[in-house]
């Protein structure tokens, strides 16, 4: 860690603000029709930062972010935190490869990561004996894949403008 002073961390508040906005979008009331299709905003934002700045946002911050989601949603403490840590691990591990992919291909990879998180949560819920909701559980996955390119472009422009690195 002797290299640490060489890195000038600047504008880190952009990361925090984007995460807070993601939490707001997660708990924002939506009309009944689109309620089930709410994208996994928090995960999308986490994946972006893990991919763009893996030396700043990683497993630890992902876990903490997931814990915030747990508190906000009233789920078991650790349920989302666990999935978020796993996603952060995958995203930081493969960040160099997916960064250069075309957007549609990126969407698919992001979708795979989300699916892993949701599957993990699904299993945990099964163990904890929380009742199943059927196929509607997977609807956010589709919405998230469709939205990834926009999330990516917005956050990338934000990061470049604010020179976050």
């Amino acid at each position, binding site marked *: 860690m002797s290299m*640490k002073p060489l890195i000038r961390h600047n504008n880190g508040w952009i990361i925090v603000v984007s995460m807070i906005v993601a939490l707001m979008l997660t*708990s924002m009331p939506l009309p009944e029709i689109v309620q089930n299709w709410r994208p996994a905003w928090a995960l999308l934002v986490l994946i972006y930062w893990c991919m763009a700045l893996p030396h700043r946002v*990683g497993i630890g911050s992902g876990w903490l972010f997931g814990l*915030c989601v747990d508190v*906000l949603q*009233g789920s*078991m403490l650790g349920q989302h*935190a666990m999935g978020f840590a796993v996603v952060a*691990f995958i995203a930081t591990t493969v960040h160099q490869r997916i960064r250069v992919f075309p957007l549609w291909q990126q969407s698919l990879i992001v979708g795979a990561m989300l699916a892993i998180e949701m599957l993990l949560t699904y299993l945990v*819920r099964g163990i904890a004996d929380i009742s199943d909701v059927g196929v509607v559980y997977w609807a956010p996955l589709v919405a998230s894949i469709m939205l990834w390119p926009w999330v990516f472009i917005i956050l990338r422009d934000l990061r470049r403008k604010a020179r976050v690195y």
Partner: protein
Amino acid sequence: MSVIKPLFVKGPSSVARLCVFLLISALAMVVDVRYQHMETIRSVLSLAMYPIQYVVNAPVSAVHWMSDSLSSRQALLEENTKLRQQNLMLRSQAQRFASLQTENSRLRELLDSSVRAGERVLVADLLAVELALTSRHVVLNKGAQQGVFLGQPILDADGVMGQIIHVNPISSTAMLITDPEHAIPVQVNRNGLRAVATGTGKANELELLHIPNNADIKAGDLIVSSGMGGRFPVGYPVAQILSVTVDPSQPYARVTAVPRAKLMRAREVLLVWPEEPLDQNLVSQADD
């Protein structure tokens, strides 16, 4: 300007770190489900999360405030007249209720059974925030500071809504009776038949469990809380029976009911402190 990123960062490998965090999560979940210790941590964390919920709720409450303050004088006058009439009616009913209550407690004393006292209530606002898709939970703007406690029943003007499941310093989370995890002991108002009503996860449906095929229950019956288990106060309306399906090949009838409370539309709810000891109740009444 140095943007050199260290390629070979020392420290525990990411796999090791992941394992540590997975272990912590698993431990936290087990403790959270099995024991109550995590409630303190949760309430501290949710204090930090409250600003987010507050901001999310702000536009909705702003719209309500606007529609309140922009409504015309005519509409307000009409509403006022209507409310005044309603108030008169309710007060006349309350007069009779007071005398019935004293009579009831006197009779109970004669029978040597315990005297039931009235309940204390507090109005709380629902925050317009969305929780997990799979559960029917709501957030209230009253918390431990106002004396809210775990398992406290919440009602609206028409019936039982649910109970408190997490208490935070200035807010709390309640589970609605339609949540699939929720069950409430009830009885049929007409004949006192006891049952347990559980949520189905659908917005407006309850199911009554273990009703024998030949039980005296039919569509349209009102079911009220039975007070068994001591969590909900006795005699509050819960739901109205929607359908009773008898299939002779099944041991029990399938009974569905519609909750009386406006679960999806309510903006304000009542928090109830059930059945305080009689002498304390007298003191609080004297204070009023």
